[in-house]
């Protein structure tokens, strides 16, 4: 699966974003993390092969969160659906 890594100096948390390449809120989320110099990984779900899509779908549903984007996962435990700035800031503090 094509996971993109965006380097940053803030490595305090493990941040992963499920996104769509066409989605403006996803772009905003990525930019937000970049501006905060947070290191993170992301995958654009709309560009995945069928096989990988199945994996991602299983992964997201097994976490009990809706299949919506962006989905931001912090330290493998905090899950935020949508670009909710306050929540992301809170989890990154």
């Amino acid at each position, binding site marked *: 699966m094509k996971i993109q890594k965006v380097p940053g100096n803030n490595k305090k948390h493990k941040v992963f974003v499920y996104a*769509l*390449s*066409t*989605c*403006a*809120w*996803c*772009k*905003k989320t990525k930019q937000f993390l970049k501006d905060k110099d947070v290191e993170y990984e992301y995958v654009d*779900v*709309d560009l995945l092969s*069928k096989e990988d*899509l199945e994996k991602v*779908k299983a992964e997201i549903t097994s976490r009990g969160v*809706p*299949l*919506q*984007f962006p989905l931001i996962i912090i330290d493998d435990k905090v899950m935020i659906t*949508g*670009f*909710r700035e306050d929540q992301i800031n809170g989890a990154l503090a």
Partner: protein
Amino acid sequence: MTSLEEVRRRVEMDAESRGYKLNPDSYFLNDLLEGLRTNEERYGYPSCPCRYATGIFDLDKDIICPCDYRDIDVEEFGACYCGLFVSKEVYEGKKKLQPVPERRPSKLIERALSGRTTKEPAHEVKKEERVMEAIDGMKFWYCKQCGYVAFREEPPYICPICKAKREAFAEIYLSVFAKG
């Protein structure tokens, strides 16, 4: 190839006809227009940039822009799910644009992500059965206020003609007679 300007013009005209505004943040707006253009090229129709689409028309038809959920979301939250269409209050900065909760039923999202259609594989059927199968959960709905008729699984949230609420829609029962 559809140009970005064409996409913009189309969306502008649509917004104007409904009394909506487009997102005042020009970068954000451009990203959305790009997304619409990408999807139109990819799938043949401009499906919602902020939702996963399959490229199978039957699975995506409720999220082709402007999607089925737009009118009710602009009314309730001041913006559609993507934030492309906004109300006057949001446009003028009197109301802050917040992420809009997803209104698309989760069963449709799951169906799309698994790429399944509800159609059964073809088999020998009597004519009468075939008529029913073609209808496939679709119903006729009419607006009691203005008479507008829609053919879809659920009634519209808001009547696109007279803006009556969903409650104004009633189902039309049809009997289909197949000869032969």
